[in-house]
């Protein structure tokens, strides 16, 4: 198990918070809460070791499409594929709303 931290430029914090997913096999749990304006912080606790670069690239790809809101995100990962991670994050963004 490894704990990783990431930071990305962001917009304004949203009002709401959201929880999606579950720490089940091949899945992950994502907690999204309002952060500090301009910054998105992510902490990942993952069962898969040595994947810092893969997480970094995945987040970069997701956030380059659109500037994310300012969030504090906690991820508890139980071996999710990049596709599942992206899906869960999109679900989370959807739930808190983008405005």
């Amino acid at each position: 198990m490894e704990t990783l931290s990431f930071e990305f430029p962001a917009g304004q914090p949203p009002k709401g918070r959201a929880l999606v997913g579950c720490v089940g096999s091949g899945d992950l749990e994502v907690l999204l809460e309002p952060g500090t304006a301009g910054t998105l912080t992510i902490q990942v606790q993952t069962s898969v070791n040595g994947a810092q670069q893969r997480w970094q690239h995945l987040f970069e790809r997701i956030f380059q499409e659109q500037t994310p809101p300012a969030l504090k995100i906690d991820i508890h990962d139980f071996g999710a594929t990049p596709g599942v991670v992206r899906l869960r994050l999109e679900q989370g963004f959807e739930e808190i709303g983008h405005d």
Partner: protein
Amino acid sequence: MTDLLTKHSFVELGARQRAKALLDVGTYRELIDPFQRVMSPWLSRQGVVPQADDGVVIAKGSIAGLPVVVAAIEGNFQGGSLGEVGGAKIAGALELAGEDNRNGIPTRAVLLLETGGVRLQEANLGLAAIADIHAAIVDLRQYQPVIGVVAGSVGCFGGMSIAAGLCSYLVVTREARLGLNGPQVIEQEAGLEEYDSRDRPFIWSLTGGEQRFNSGLADRYVADDVVQIQQTVSALLQQGAPEQPRSRRADFYLARLAELDTAAQIEPATVSALYQGERP
């Protein structure tokens, strides 16, 4: 419309959605929600990723207007196993429901059981928490019905199957399994001849929801359907406590077991006939 179009699976719902589905609309209020991050103090240090709610959802609300606390176990996290935090959440909620009743508030409880029992990474603390849960069910049951639901797909095993056995009423589906010992453990302890953990039809025939209902070891057999489960739980809550909970029928069960020929290995039909009498 056909059933296929109108049914919504309860089994496919997560613990939080299940609790919401049972409570009257707009009354759901979660206690120690996941954003409070009261997580297992034991998993991370063993290299196991924790979950923010430790796999247990406690929600207060009402069902048919009656005050209820729901405890729902998330079967997808660590097999629904109970550790210190999740176990204390259930025990503590039941203890407070008992206290409510002593203070004139008729809080009832519903337990959504998807669990392998004790979480082995927290072994003795899980076992202690389960003893606390047993104690609290027996206490609360003096005042109000405690309803257990085993919907599936994990089933209900280990010390929590004993908790199921303590409930005033037990609701099961076809997807449910209920037993003290997990198939793997029985095979490990007793051998393949006694119990083949890979023989799924054999295991379902002995411990599946339908068989448990037919043997009188569960009170309601329902479809995997949100509305049907909600209505069944609601009706049982309104019905009040049973005259004699199953766990107080020692004389009956000892008399039945005395009649059994234990020389031969057992068949499912033998159990239902022994406990329920021959059926036409």
